[in-house]
């Protein structure tokens, strides 16, 4: 069975805010290496559009560092699935459309959980998931096998939380309490601490 893995930047106070963290080469190298263990990436619609809008054109960005370009090449070349009921067609940013964007993306509208279970049963490398809402749904359904939290040395005081009840839940789970096993930790020069957990 393939593993479903999830990695995300998070502040000390538990907010997943992509605008506030320290995104240096060490961080991009981490994500590029993690994607090296993966052969398909799953997205919710918002994260898909967010990542596609920059990373599909990053290889031609003169500001992009070598680490950023390596990460971009990795994410751009991997097959992707976007789960979205609302879009008939995945809109590409104009830059991405010009370079034919993320062509290797399939949209799935229905039966997200069944689709993930089917993917997990196929042979292959790990499956990665990106997006707070769908990762929360998968977490609560015990579908995530390993996760990495990159704790940024920042306190935000407010924002979007991970694994909150409002995210992607068809019904309330009032007694959710998921113990995880700490696998290992790492530290970046920036002060980011990587916490790696797996399902018990």
């Amino acid at each position: 069975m393939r593993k479903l893995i999830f990695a995300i930047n998070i502040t000390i106070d538990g907010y997943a805010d992509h605008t506030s963290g320290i995104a240096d080469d060490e961080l991009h190298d981490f994500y590029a290496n993690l994607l090296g263990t993966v052969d398909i990436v799953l997205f919710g619609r918002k994260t898909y559009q967010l990542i596609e809008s920059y990373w599909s054109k990053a290889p031609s960005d003169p500001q992009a560092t070598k680490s950023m370009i390596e990460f971009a090449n990795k994410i751009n070349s991997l097959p992707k699935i976007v789960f979205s009921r609302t879009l008939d067609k995945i809109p590409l940013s104009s830059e991405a459309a010009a370079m034919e964007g993320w062509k290797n993306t399939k949209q799935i509208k229905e039966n997200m959980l069944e689709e993930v279970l089917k993917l997990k049963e196929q042979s292959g490398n790990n499956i990665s998931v990106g997006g707070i809402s769908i990762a929360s749904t998968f977490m609560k359904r015990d579908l995530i096998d390993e996760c990495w939290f990159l704790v940024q040395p920042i306190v935000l005081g407010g924002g979007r939380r991970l694994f909150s009840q409002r995210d992607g839940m068809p019904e309330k789970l009032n007694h959710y309490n998921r113990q995880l096993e700490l696998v290992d930790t790492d530290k970046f020069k920036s002060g980011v601490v990587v916490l790696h957990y797996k399902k018990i």
Partner: protein
Amino acid sequence: MNRSQKIVFSNTMKKAEWKNTKVIGGDIVQEMKRMKKSKGLDMVILGSGSIVTQFADAGLIDEYQIMIDPVAIGKGTTMFKGSKSKLDLKLTETKIFKSGIVLLCYKPM
């Protein structure tokens, strides 16, 4: 705990029964500035989310020690709730406990 000098910050509590405990109300930020200037060992806040937010916003906390439990619960009280400004910290130390708890120590930038 019983032997230590304790302070309760409260505007509603009149008196604390626990020995060695003083109740302080009113402008607790001003009071903390005074206390930091006085002589003595370090002072610690254990938990107490609301006063931590106020003191952090006022730049009065010199060191943070945060323990992360290996559990996801999806709800509950958040740390630094209502904090007015983004706080950038410097990682000073980490420690891993056998239980899987990770201790993260920070200082303000």
